[in-house]
């Protein structure tokens, strides 16, 4: 029998040479040469050569290592029987432990840590909002930050221009954002897949440009300062510890409501649309209406997060609402796992914490984020706690 041509090609000396570690390292080093100079390219070559060779070795023995590990596991589980408590009691204990750790944070944590935790909370709400749109309904929104910006700016403007307090502006701002979600959704939902992505991206840019250029109203790039923090029963919530609990209430509210909605008829319709739009419309789901709900509901949470952000920072400027921010939120959702509520919480916390921990090597953290995204997609596209059965076709 004749060999398939592809095998002959793979065996050819040219193919073997171009796939050898030395060639790969040389090629990549050469590409970086103009930007960094000869010396750095040389270092890069050595590092890459070592890395690629190691990877090769690892790949060759991957099967053996896996077999060894599994036999080891079998061996251990065969000999030692640890009686683990039942999974339900275990999960309750774990939840209790975690909630104690979370609730007591202001008593043992530094201000710095609490600050990051508050920020994580805001991003959790934001990422949950995007998860509704991208994770549940499967609509890629690349301009999600626009809703966040509208929320933050409407509270800032209502508060500084009209003197309306937090509790009165909160529903107003969130309603405004939800409305803008509807308005964007009407033209956007006629579009499919990537067209939708680019229109939402354009919407995000338009919002940012308006905020940046409408000097008389938004004070342009200078931003709006002196925003009032919220009050509860006449007590101003401005200390970090207080704000931490304040945010936790909203995070719990968001997670609770989104969980309930996701499990409801609406949530299941969203998932059906994500899995197969034609099939779901043929069983009587009004896909346009449900997509509209999804957009508006996602925008709702982004608006809430925006109001909280403005109240926490007491300052807003267009700089906080760039495209990179949209990408960051999307990364949180994808890192955590599309459509997984606990996953997205984890993703948000990791992506807020990670840059803070990498502050020492601050310059390189964006490089790490970029290459990390590529590697995540190649090695674990479903994210850390990826939703099972997510196919993501359109």
């Amino acid at each position: 029998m004749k060999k398939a041509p592809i095998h002959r090609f793979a065996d050819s000396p040219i193919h073997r040479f171009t796939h050898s570690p030395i060639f790969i390292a040389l090629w990549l080093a050469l590409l970086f040469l103009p930007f960094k100079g000869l010396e750095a390219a040389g270092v890069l070559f050595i590092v890459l050569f070592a890395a690629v060779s190691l990877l090769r070795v690892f790949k060759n023995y991957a099967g053996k290592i896996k077999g060894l590990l599994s036999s080891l596991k079998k061996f251990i589980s065969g000999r030692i029987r640890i009686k683990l408590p039942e999974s339900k009691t275990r999960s309750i204990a774990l939840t209790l432990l975690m909630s104690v750790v979370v609730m007591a944070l202001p008593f043992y944590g530094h201000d710095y840590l609490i600050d990051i935790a508050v920020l994580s909370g805001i991003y959790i709400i934001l990422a949950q909002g995007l998860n509704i749109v991208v994770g549940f309904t499967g609509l890629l929104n690349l301009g999600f930050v626009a809703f966040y910006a509208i929320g933050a700016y409407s509270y800032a403007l209502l508060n500084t221009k009209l003197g309306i307090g937090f509790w009165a502006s909160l529903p107003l701002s969130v309603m405004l954002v939800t409305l803008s979600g509807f308005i964007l959704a009407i033209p956007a939902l006629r579009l499919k897949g990537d067209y939708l992505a680019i229109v939402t991206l354009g919407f995000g840019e338009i919002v940012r440009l308006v905020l940046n250029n409408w000097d008389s109203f938004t004070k342009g790039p200078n931003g709006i300062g002196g925003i009032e923090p919220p009050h509860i029963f006449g007590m101003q919530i401005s200390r970090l510890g207080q704000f931490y609990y304040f945010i936790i209430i909203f995070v719990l509210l968001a997670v609770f409501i989104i969980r309930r909605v996701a499990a409801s008829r609406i949530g299941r319709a969203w998932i059906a649309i994500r899995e197969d739009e034609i099939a779901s419309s043929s069983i009587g789901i009004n896909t346009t209406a449900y997509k509209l709900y999804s957009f508006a509901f996602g925008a709702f949470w982004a608006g809430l997060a925006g109001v909280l952000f403005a109240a926490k920072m007491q300052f807003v400027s267009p700089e906080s609402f760039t495209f990179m921010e949209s990408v960051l939120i999307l990364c949180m959702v994808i890192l955590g796992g599309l459509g997984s509520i606990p996953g997205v919480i984890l993703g948000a916390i990791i992506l807020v914490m990670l840059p803070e921990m990498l502050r020492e090597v601050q310059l390189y953290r964006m490089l790490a984020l970029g290459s990390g995204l590529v590697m995540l997609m190649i090695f674990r596209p479903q994210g850390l706690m990826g939703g099972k059965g997510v196919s993501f076709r359109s």
Partner: protein
Amino acid sequence: MFTQQLINGLTLGGVYALIALGYTMVYGILELINFAHGEIYMLGAYLGIIFLGFFTAIGLTSYSLPLALILTFVLSVIFCSAYGFTIERIAYRPLRNAPRLSPLISAIGVSIFLQNYVMLTQGATDKIFPNLFEKAGMEFIGARVTYTQIFIMAASAVLMLSLNLFITKTRMGKAMRAVAQDKVMASLVGININTVISATFIIGSGLAAVAGLMVAAYYGLVNYSIGYIAGIKAFTAAVLGGIGSIPGAMFGGILLGLIESFSAAYISSEYKDAYAFIILIIILFIKPSGLFGKTQEEKV
């Protein structure tokens, strides 16, 4: 004023069209928004400055300016094509059969990586492209046209025409069209899909590099962040013309350039960057598949 804006718009439009071609070719074949494409354009601009600086340092520029320019041009294009090829190999090929969102995220990752890589190695401040042509130019019906502008318009026209010839007449062009139509069928008739996709990336990146070089010479300033906004606008241009369609991308690019330059002159220049998106939303609202795009029937 009108002629001046027309010429400015055509210059800008030529550049957008060149970048948009890369987007549309990749999209036509892989259905992927190649977010890193704008960065290739930025890399092209930077490489131009780097190579020109290098040639000035070794004295080639003062020996023969045209030779130095041609070498810069050729080297930048070769390097950018190599970048495009490598990005596809590393970041997109392993995801060929992955869900639609995966390569898109991967592309965003590559884009972030390249932007920050250039910022780290070349600094966050604007880089100045050596002003070689002065501001020489000529009068043309009450408008001033610099030689750089003439060069940009001519070069983009020539490149677009030759690309069109390449796609319609050559063997590889035919293979590209076949792969864009149906990958499985194309591979069954003996087309090597991987080669075709690599070729697409190489050509698209080369065009982006030319655009980057020309913009660097035109504006005289280069920044690590120019790739993002130019990329987005070029993608808008590609969508305007109907993504996947090569004449559509050319037309969309030129249209976008004209729209931008006229609206900046007659309406307000503050929102210069927003017009592209507003037009895009309006056009997609009226014709969701772009101006030249075919509405695709969905197969169940």
